[in-house]
């Protein structure tokens, strides 16, 4: 049944249809104001689901989409899905509000922008609230496409197009892997429903397809969530307008991969590969991203790499949380805390990173540049932006009293805990996990400081700025202010989120554990003098030292391999693909009709012979055959003779005459084989054909001159003979096979009764199969029209011969 929930999910799509109309007919009002209504209503609507999903609750509504294939549109709202739905609509509303001030209604093509944005919003909602893997995959690809469209929004810029294509190619490649992974899972479990698959997880774990399916799905998730080494698309995606970067490439779309990993955790967490791959790639991405971020000079570049790095961090926590599923109960299960930390950090990241992106957009908008080498000293000129930057960055750096501190502490805690995990030989190299986490956090601290102090302190360089800097309009600051207010609020009252959002989401990730009791998540600032606290102190101290000495560190950049390596790999493989496909195409697409015929006929022959002998259909039944009469023998010889003349003659007149002889011989065969109508038609047609050839010959004999050049072509000959042989074999087996009675009896019986005609062939043509004949006449009409116009038509400026 189609419910309000389904309507809510597709509402953005419906609204997207209206956007161009609103843009066209109400140009005085910024289209964004109309669009804003959609996410606000949806956000309030999804808030009403909070009580339904608390604990282990969920809401499921089924709408049968393609029932015959078992593809249903099942909207499924549980803790995890609702968390994402709220993020998508909540951040979506703020981003739309921000974009109203960011995008000028006179200069920008708002209709495109908001259509794509709503498309994305709907796809993302569908992705996170679907129970069916195929539906999930479809929406997954729509998010890739809308991301492509939004990155290339300023499509006249070369870099936008490059970034858009790069993100599309990488994410769609992952999407394809994902599809294959889903199909593998479904082939084992026999269902596409996520619920059903989770119920059949034991079945999958024993299957040999378990590992391939897992790897393919991780490939999909890693490309989408910009994990190392697929992260290279995200920095280039920053060519998109800033609202898009804040929304898609930081808060929502890139978290689709995280969503998928979280969703699939109950299915795959039993595997050591899952633990090592998710945790390992997460940590690798974390440190790689933070190291790359401090080399950036573009503010958005820093944010892009920091997003890459933070996504890695969330993933590593989810990977570590998989360890929790090795225990039967929530009691004494410290690893559930890693999952709590992942979800908590996901929310926190959306708040502070969203505000930082919007802050950077405001700076870009008001100063005309995002280059930190040209910026500086904006503190007094843009005090509100400065406040946003300080809160956002300090939260990201993991400083109290903001929410980032809390989740960073939980992250350290879970990494320290996981180092003691007794399985998967964690004890041997497990100590590396907290060390990597800590090192990466130091660099995170450094780039957060860069973000604030390089932009807002120091000497202002007005001569380097394209425009005179001043504070951004209030509307542009409203959205980031709301977000930083959340940063502070969550920092002080983190436990308001625990029963409403975090624990229900944990229940979705660890459904079996959730049955055994409450997760008992309690988030607070002061844990006493724990290792986590000392780690944070160490981060701050070392981070400050590095930041102060950063100028000297620049030399390190030359030593440390840059992302150039992966970008080059991407560019090279793209060029290589381009070249090789061009080579392949020009090798077989020669532009010569002859070559195409050869492909077509070779393929036909292979297919026909294969099925003829492969299915054992080849039989010759000589019993019912008729004897050969002298007439027929003579006619056959004439037929062969005239064909041979046609094949090898160099004389134009001989060719035309031989063709005529051939046609008349066929007509005589028709007579012998009891087909008087065919014979009559053939005689008429052949006469007209020969006349036509002769006319052509008379009016333009030169065209026939080419016949004089003839050369025996062996390849063509072999192909023709093979085709001829195939035809012969098929003809023989057909006349020896009668699988079912012919329908001709029906025509013979009813011809006179129904149509009053004695000539059955005629009756079939004009009566039983009258439409065929009608269309045949149509074909003839078109042909004659073509012939007439080819002869008579002289286009203006055409040939004068």
């Amino acid at each position, binding site marked *: 049944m189609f419910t309000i929930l389904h309507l809510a999910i597709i509402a953005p799509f419906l609204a997207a249809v209206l956007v161009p109309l609103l843009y066209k007919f109400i140009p005085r009002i910024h289209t964004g104001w109309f669009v804003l209504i959609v996410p606000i209503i949806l956000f309030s609507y999804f808030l009403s689901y909070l009580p339904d999903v608390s604990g282990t609750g969920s809401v499921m509504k089924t709408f049968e989409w393609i029932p015959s294939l078992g593809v249903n549109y099942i909207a499924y709202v549980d803790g995890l899905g609702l968390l994402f739905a709220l993020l998508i609509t909540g951040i979506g509303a703020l981003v739309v509000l921000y974009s109203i001030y960011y995008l000028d209604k006179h200069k920008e093509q708002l209709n495109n922008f908001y259509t794509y944005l709503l498309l994305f919003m709907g796809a993302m909602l569908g992705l996170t609230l679907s129970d069916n893997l195929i539906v999930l995959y479809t929406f997954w690809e729509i998010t890739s496409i809308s991301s492509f469209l939004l990155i290339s929004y300023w499509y006249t810029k070369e870099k936008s197009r490059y970034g858009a294509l790069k993100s599309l190619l990488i994410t769609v490649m992952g999407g394809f892997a994902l599809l294959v992974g889903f199909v593998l899972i479904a082939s084992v479990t026999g269902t596409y429903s996520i619920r059903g698959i989770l119920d059949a997880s034991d079945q999958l774990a024993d299957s040999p397809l378990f590992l391939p399916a897992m790897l393919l799905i991780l490939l999909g998730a890693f490309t989408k969530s910009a994990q190392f080494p697929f992260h290279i698309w995200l920095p280039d995606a920053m060519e998109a307008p800033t609202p898009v970067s804040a929304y898609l490439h930081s808060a929502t779309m890139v978290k689709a991969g995280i969503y998928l990993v979280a969703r699939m955790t109950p299915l795959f967490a039993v595997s050591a590969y899952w633990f090592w791959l998710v945790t390992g790639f997460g940590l690798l991405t974390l440190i790689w991203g933070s190291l790359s971020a401090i080399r950036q000079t573009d503010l958005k570049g820093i944010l892009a790499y920091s997003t890459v790095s933070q996504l890695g961090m969330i993933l590593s926590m989810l990977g570590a949380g998989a360890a929790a599923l090795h225990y039967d109960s929530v009691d004494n299960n410290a690893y559930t805390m890693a999952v709590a930390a992942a979800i908590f950090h996901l929310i926190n990241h959306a708040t502070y990173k969203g505000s930082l992106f919007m802050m950077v957009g405001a700076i870009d908008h008001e100063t005309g540049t995002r280059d930190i080498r040209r910026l500086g000293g904006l503190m007094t000129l843009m005090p509100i932006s400065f406040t946003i930057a300080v809160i956002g960055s300090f939260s990201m750096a993991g400083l109290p009293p903001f929410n980032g501190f809390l989740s960073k502490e939980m992250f350290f805690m879970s990494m320290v805990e996981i180092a003691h995990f007794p399985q998967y030989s964690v004890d041997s190299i497990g100590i590396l996990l907290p060390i990597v986490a800590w090192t990466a956090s130091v660099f995170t601290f450094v780039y957060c400081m860069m973000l604030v102090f390089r932009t807002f302190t120091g000497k202002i360089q007005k001569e380097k700025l394209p425009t005179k800097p001043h504070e951004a309009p209030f509307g542009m600051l409203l959205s980031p202010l709301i977000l930083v207010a959340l940063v502070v609020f969550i920092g002080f009252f983190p436990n308001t989120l625990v029963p409403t959002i975090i624990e229900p989401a944990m229940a979705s990730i660890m459904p079996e554990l959730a049955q055994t009791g409450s997760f008992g998540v309690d988030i607070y600032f002061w844990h006493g003098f724990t290792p986590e606290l000392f780690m944070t102190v160490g981060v701050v101290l070392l981070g400050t030292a590095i930041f102060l000495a950063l100028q000297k560190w620049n030399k390190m950049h030359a030593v440390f391999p840059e992302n150039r390596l992966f970008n080059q790999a991407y560019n090279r493989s793209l060029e290589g693909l381009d070249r090789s496909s061009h080579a392949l195409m020009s090798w077989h697409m020669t532009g010569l009709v002859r070559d195409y015929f050869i492909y077509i006929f070779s393929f036909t022959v292979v297919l026909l012979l294969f099925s003829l002998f492969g299915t054992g259909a080849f039989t010759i039944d000589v019993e019912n055959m008729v004897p050969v009469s002298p007439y027929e023998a003579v006619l056959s010889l004439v037929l062969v003779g005239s064909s041979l003349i046609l094949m090898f003659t160099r004389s134009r007149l001989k060719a035309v005459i031989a063709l005529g002889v051939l046609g008349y011989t066929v007509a005589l065969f028709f007579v012998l084989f009891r*087909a008087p109508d065919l014979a009559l038609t053939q005689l008429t047609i052949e006469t007209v054909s020969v006349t036509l050839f002769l006319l052509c010959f008379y009016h333009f004999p030169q065209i026939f001159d080419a016949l004089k050049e003839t050369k025996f072509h062996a390849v063509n000959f072999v192909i023709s003979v093979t085709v001829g042989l195939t035809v012969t074999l098929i003809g023989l087996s057909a006349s020896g096979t009668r699988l079912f009675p012919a329908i001709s009896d029906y025509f013979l019986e009813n011809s006179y009764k129904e149509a009053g005609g004695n000539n059955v062939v005629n009756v079939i043509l004009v009566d039983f199969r009258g439409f065929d004949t009608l269309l045949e006449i149509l074909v003839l009409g078109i042909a004659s029209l073509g012939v007439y116009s080819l002869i008579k038509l002289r286009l203006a400026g055409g040939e004068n011969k």
Partner: protein
Amino acid sequence: MEIIMSILAGFLFTVGLYLILTKNLIRIIIGSSVLSHGAHLLLLTMAGLKTGAPPLLGLEADTYVDPLPQALILTAIVISFGVTSFILVLGYRTYKVTGAAETDQLRGTDTDE
């Protein structure tokens, strides 16, 4: 006789295809004509030869040959005539406009706009 007719049809296919595979426009046109003759004979043969009287009910014979393939062939003859005449005139016009009577002279490249 069915064997001979099958071979003949195959032979006509061979000749027709060989002509179509050449570069010469006139040969291609002739070849397509030959090919359709082969197809007609093949259809007729596959339906069974001389299994009765011609399908004219006025003859009041015991059995008649299958009328349906004949109807199909009749349609095919007319259509193939239409096609042959059309490509003949097309070739004629092509030669007049471009002066090319061979397909490889007509070959376009990707850079042609």
